[in-house]
Structure formats: structure tokens, C-alpha cells
């Protein structure tokens, strides 16, 4: 049987179609106007405080500078940075954190979140206590921990003396990486465990119950069922912590008050001291751009997932 609309002459169809499109466009135009009205305050500030500074940073990075005098030099700053060993040495600390602290923390956080699950009543208390350090600013964590490890105040000192290590100093340059490890693990492990736990409890109970019926033990369920389902959240956490590791500043900055650290101990410290101690703003801007690019590349995976998850259009 012929479809009914075949009986409509083609020109009428076109007219109808045409009308529909103009109507759609008009609607889209109106909603575009409305949307930008709501977006306006954000966009103005976003352009002023994010987009413009980034473009200014790019522009500055292409200039040479002596005092207040600036002149265009193209990519010369970048060429100099590539042979500036002090800049690349500053990545030792972030790489140490990336290689040791981040994996260790994710491992610990996963174990802790599995332990939370086994504690029905006391779990709340543990989660509260473990989360507390995260509410503390890195500066204060740096102050308190650096005092705890300082040779003049450390409660570890009497302990070391007792064990016969009275000559060994605690807060020395070589000891700073493990001390940073202790501080940063202290700050973020509880927070990370909380996030892992949140996605752990969203796994349907049926999964582990079915496995239990099949005779799987606690560890088998943990490794074969739960941890694979946590993959996405663990990857995201890894990326966020990798970004954090690239930018570490506050904790070594405060430790620097009690033990002499070179001004290129981390990339952020090197950028800061280049700009504000040595006044090499354009050179520092170029280093900032390189750091931003590295961060951006690391974050691409998260950006893609995030855009996919959140941006669904109205059906």
C-alpha cells in the first residue's frame, strides 16, 4: 500500500520542510541568545582571568627581557629552556612522586577502601579521620610536618638517640624526598580512599554475591571483580595526581625554611624564583607554557571522558 504522504505534491512537502527549518533556526537563535545571557558573567571573567592571561603568557614567552625593557625574540626562550639543565632537573621531584607516591597512594587507597567495606559500623569513623588531612592547606601541612622532622623539635630525635643514631641528622637534603612522600601521602590518601570507596559501594551487590556462591574468596572477589570495575576511577585519580605532582610547590617551599633546597627543586619553584627572585619574567612565562602543555597532554584522557559523560544534549 502506498504511504499517505506520497500523495502530497512535492512542492507542498518542500514548503512544509522549509517552514520547519526556519522555525527551528529561530528557536535555536532564541535559545542561543538566552544561553549566552546566562553565560555572560562567566564568559567575561573567564576571558579576563584565564584566556587573556594564557595568551599574554604565550606572548611574553616570545620576548627577551632586561629589567623593564622587552623585545621580540621568537622562540629563543624555548631554545634556551631546552638546553637549561636546571629546568629539566626540577622534574626529578615530580617524577619521583609520580613513580613512587602516586602508585603507592592508589594501592593504599584501594586497600583502605576494601577495608572500609568490611567495617559496617566503625567505617564512618575511619573515613572521617582519614579524610581530615585533606581539609588542611598544604602550607600548614608543610609547616607542621617540617617541624616534626626538624632536628631541633622532632619527637623522632629521642628515639633515634636511643637507638644509637645520635649523630644522624633527620632533615637533610637527601632525606627530603621520603619526607615529602610522608607529607603528601598524609594529605591525600584518605581523600583518595574516600573516592575509591564511593565507586566501590556503587558496584551492585549481586556481583560479589554471585561470585561468593561460586566459591570465590575475599581476595578473589576483590581482584577479579571489584578492582577491574574501579579501573576508570583509578585511571582518573592517577591522572589528577600526576598533574598535582607536576605542580608541587607548597610542601617543598615550606620545607625550604628548615633545610636548604635549590631553587629548582620542583618546576613550579623554579618558575617562581626565576620570575620573582631573578626578575626573568619572560623566561619564566615560557617555562610556564611548557609546564601547561605537559599538564594538558596528561589530562587529555580525563577531558575526553568528562566531556562525554556530562555533555548530553536535551532529547
Amino acid at each position, binding site marked *: 500500500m502506498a504511504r499517505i504522504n506520497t500523495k502530497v505534491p512535492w512542492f507542498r512537502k518542500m514548503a512544509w520542510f522549509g517552514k520547519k527549518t526556519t522555525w527551528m533556526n529561530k528557536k535555536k537563535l532564541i*535559545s*542561543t541568545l*538566552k*544561553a549566552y545571557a*546566562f*553565560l555572560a*558573567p*562567566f564568559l567575561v571573567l*573567564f576571558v579576563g*582571568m584565564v584566556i587573556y*592571561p*594564557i595568551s599574554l*603568557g604565550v606572548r*611574553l614567552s616570545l620576548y627577551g627581557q632586561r629589567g623593564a625593557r622587552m623585545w621580540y625574540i621568537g622562540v629563543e626562550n624555548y631554545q634556551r629552556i631546552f638546553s637549561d639543565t636546571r629546568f629539566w632537573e626540577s622534574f626529578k621531584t615530580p617524577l619521583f612522586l609520580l613513580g613512587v607516591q602516586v602508585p603507592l597512594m592508589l594501592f593504599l587507597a584501594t586497600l*583502605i577502601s576494601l577495608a572500609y567495606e568490611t567495617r559496617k559500623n566503625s567505617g564512618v569513623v*575511619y573515613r*572521617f*579521620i*582519614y579524610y*581530615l*588531612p585533606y*581539609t588542611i*592547606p*598544604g*602550607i*600548614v*601541612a608543610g*609547616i*607542621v610536618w617540617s*617541624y*616534626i622532622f626538624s632536628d*631541633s*623539635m*622532632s619527637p623522632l630525635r629521642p628515639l633515634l638517640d636511643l637507638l644509637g643514631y645520635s649523630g644522624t641528622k633527620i632533615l637533610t637534603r637527601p632525606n627530603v624526598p621520603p619526607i615529602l612522600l610522608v607529607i603528601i601521602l598524609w594529605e591525600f590518601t584518605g581523600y583518595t580512599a*574516600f573516592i575509591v570507596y564511593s565507586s566501590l559501594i556503587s558496584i551492585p551487590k549481586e556481583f560479589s554475591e554471585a561470585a561468593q556462591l561460586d566459591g570465590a574468596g575475599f581476595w578473589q572477589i576483590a581482584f577479579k571483580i571489584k578492582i577491574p570495575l574501579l579501573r576508570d*576511577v583509578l585511571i*582518573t585519580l592517577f591522572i*589528577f595526581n600526576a598533574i598535582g605532582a607536576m*605542580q608541587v*610547590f*607548597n610542601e617543598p617551599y*615550606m620545607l625550604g625554611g628548615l633545610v636548604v633546597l635549590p631553587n629548582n627543586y620542583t*618546576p*613550579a619553584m623554579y618558575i*617562581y624564583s626565576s620570575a620573582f627572585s631573578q626578575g626573568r*619574567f619572560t623566561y619564566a*612565562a615560557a617555562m*610556564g*607554557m611548557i*609546564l*601547561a602543555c605537559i*599538564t*594538558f597532554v596528561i*589530562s587529555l584522557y580525563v*577531558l575526553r571522558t*568528562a*566531556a562525554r559523560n*556530562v*555533555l548530553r544534549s*536535551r532529547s
Partner: protein
Amino acid sequence: MSRRTFWSIVVTVVLMGLCVYFIFPFYWLTMGITKNVSQLYQKSLLPGVPSHLAENVQRVFSYENRTFFRWLGNSFLYATVGAFTGVTIASLAGFAFRRYDFIGKKALFIVILGCAMVPGYATTLPIFIMFRNLGLIDTRLAVLLPSFVNVFGVYLMVAYWNQVPDEMFDAAEIDGANDLLIYLRIGLPNVLPGFVTLFLLAFVGIWNNFFLPLVVLNSRSRMPLILGITTITDPQGFPVYNLTLTASFFTILPLLVLFATLQRYFKPQLYVG
């Protein structure tokens, strides 16, 4: 002893041990503020005898013409105004992404998200230069303006708005409510918990932000607590450990009170939905 109880004991011991690790600095700080410098040098884990708590507090409060209270006031000003403005603006932007299909929607969202990932250390330097040209260096506005842009907040706000069903907006639209009214009457009450969560996260974020004020401020009278406490020295410029500790204690006290009382709003937020 069965295997089950054995493991249960192991887990409890480990969890308790970690409690010690996570609480110890708080304990040490609380003990530390009862001591003067020579008592701190005794390295004891117990409170100082005789207690110097009152003296420490009094010395911190009166330090350099009571500048401590200016720092405290500044911190509250920056964190409250910055967080509230930032989250309000972010909620308006989030509403636009949720409610409308508009030209450039996807591209704009990706640009905003991409910029969320640009480290503060890369933008703060150009912001310093920009503010210097505008004569904004060492003003309160220099700390406030960047904190009004809560890029992360926009992203999370879109996620919160997504939880409000379409029917709710449509019903209001049929009733003839205009868009601003829909945002205020239908939208905001429904995302209020998210709004509070974001406000708290932003508040803590600004309260704890050290790098921006470090770069854009010079005068101690405009510094927030977090920066002010790192400038405490004796007249010769040497650190005074007991005063720094006492000031640190008062820096984190409001945060701990906020966290303990409004715990249910402190939901950790992550990019994945």
C-alpha cells in the same frame, strides 16, 4: 582462631595504625601550641609544663598591631565573597549548558574544560603582569577577581543540573514562567545541595590558596591568614616556631569546624560522573 577472625584483627590493627599516622600531626600541633621555644626543643609528646598556651595565643593576637585579625578578616572576605560569586556565576553557566541547545555549545564546553587543566602556576605569572599594568597589584581585588572564575565549578554544576528532570523545566515553561524565573524558582532549589557543596569546596580552596596572594600581594595588611602566618618572625627576622604553630592552629580551626559540622556537604568531587 579461624582465618576470618585472624584477617579481621589484622585489618583492625592496620586501620588503627593508620589512624595514628593521620591524627599525629594534629596531636603534635595541639601540644605544640602549649609550649614556648625551649619547651619545643625538649621534643616531648606531652603538653608543655607550665603551659604557655595563653601566652602564645596572646602574642599571636597582638603580633605587630593585631595584624592577625586583619589576616583572619581578609581570609573570610576572600573565601566568602570569592566562593559565593564564583559558584553563583558557575551555576548560571551550568544552567545555560543544561537548559539550552545553542550555537557553539560543545566547542565552548571543551574550551572551558581544557582550561580547567591549565596549572595555576602558568596563569598566575601573566595575571601578575596584567594586574601590574592595571595597577591592581597589592589590592584585594587582585585576589578576588581570579577566584570568581570557578572553571571546575561550571563542570560540576552542569552535572548537578543534569539531575534535574526536563519535565520540571517544561512544566514551568508552560505555566509561562520566564527563563530567569525558572532558574531562580525551579532550578536553584533543586541544585541547592550541589550549590552548598561547591561553595564549601571553593571556600576551602580559596582559604588555602597560597600561591596567588603570594604573587599579587605585598602589604601584610591585605594578606590572608595562609600567607600571613608564613611571614611571622621576631624583630631580627628569625622564625618564631611557637607563634607560627599557634597561628597555623588558628588557620585550620575554621576549616575543621566547617568540615565537622557540614560533613555531609563535603562530597569529594571527581571529573568522572
